[in-house]
């Protein structure tokens, strides 16, 4: 079995895996990082979004071997070491941007990628960006509100840049 090595949330990890292991399986089952969710079989829901080399991707549609040597950030890597929520997470809580919370890890990771490249998105840009993140509870309205609030918070606190 090939060995894969990557940096996950700042820590170097190395494991033997079958080539058919998905990145999301690797994160959840091999590393025990169950914050990344699986919500579909069709690469459409976005519950599994993580960052690979700083770009948001669907970890259910990538093999662990394809992340060999790369830098991966998951939802577990967003809050500060002392547990202080990342401003995007805080904005979701503040604005009631979640109900069951199943889609939230993917939403937060997707939004972190958006705000890194576009710190002041319009409401329309936020809605377009979230095309690949499906929420079956909230109706999206409060998610969009949370993203706009997070953008404002991050602009006010440059030291806390998205990711």
């Amino acid at each position, binding site marked *: 079995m090939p060995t894969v090595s990557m940096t996950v949330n700042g820590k170097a990890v190395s494991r033997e895996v079958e080539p058919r292991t998905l990145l999301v399986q690797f994160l959840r089952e091999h590393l025990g990082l169950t914050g990344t969710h699986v919500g579909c079989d069709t690469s459409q829901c976005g519950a599994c979004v993580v960052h690979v080399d700083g770009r948001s991707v*669907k970890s259910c549609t990538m093999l662990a071997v394809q992340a060999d040597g790369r830098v991966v950030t998951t939802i577990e890597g967003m809050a500060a070491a002392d547990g202080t929520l990342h401003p995007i997470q805080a904005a979701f809580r503040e604005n009631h941007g979640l109900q069951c919370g199943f889609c939230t890890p993917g939403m937060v990771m997707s939004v972190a990628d958006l705000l890194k490249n576009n710190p002041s998105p319009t409401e329309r840009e936020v809605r377009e960006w979230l095309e690949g993140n499906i929420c079956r509870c909230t109706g999206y309205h409060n998610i969009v509100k949370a993203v706009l609030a997070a953008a404002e918070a991050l602009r006010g606190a440059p030291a806390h840049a998205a990711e």
Partner: protein
Amino acid sequence: MYAFDYHQPASVADAAAALAAAADGKLVAGGMTLIPTLKQRLASPSDLIDLARVDELKGIGEESGSLVIGAMTCHADVAASDIVRRSIPALARLAGGIGDPQVRNRGTIGGSVANNDPAADYPAAVLGLGATIRTNKRDIAADDFFQGMFTTALEPDELITRIAFPVPQAAAYVKFPNPASRYAVVGVLVAKTGGGVRVAITGAGADGVFRATEMEQALSADFSPKALDGIAIPSDGLNGDIHASSEYRAHLIGVMAKRAVAACV
């Protein structure tokens, strides 16, 4: 997913050799089509040959009147490229309208064109702009490349290296997207070139992307939306499915084509 052996070649030559050596090898580019297919056990290749580390397949450049895009360039990079936005803005917009941001961060132009999904966007640009598909073996004109849905002129051990798009005088792509996947229910690319007008339709044809020659003739004589009045696209040979009947698709072709012409002028 069934088990397979995984290879990460660093050059086109090594990738081609690995593909030729495998019992039933498959190239993987962005994996946005192939990995879902493997997950559903609809394919069981013996070997996956990953093109991700083949640097010579990446990048965007210009060559005497053409825009040349490496096969492994992802949709997000095409959409954001200053070169593409300047020389063929319609292509940047097309790439930026594929799927969603995470699909665009992984999916590649080479994978999309090789796959030739009848509802994919890039085939309309490749055919409509009269692009040339460069492979490890030869150059293939777009008019000879697409050979029916999910079928292309590629040989089993042939891989796309680059796609060269001649820069048109004007071009626009307009699609009616499926609201869930963003694949084209109907997509129309109209290009005004030195050699006349080309119109390519994706999403609708039962045999995949095709050229609307009657529209091309009308637009070559008069490049305006009203030149398309009275051209009825027959619904024979068009797809009908849960998303849209063939009659509806025929109607949409006319509407999308007019919008594309209007966006050009």
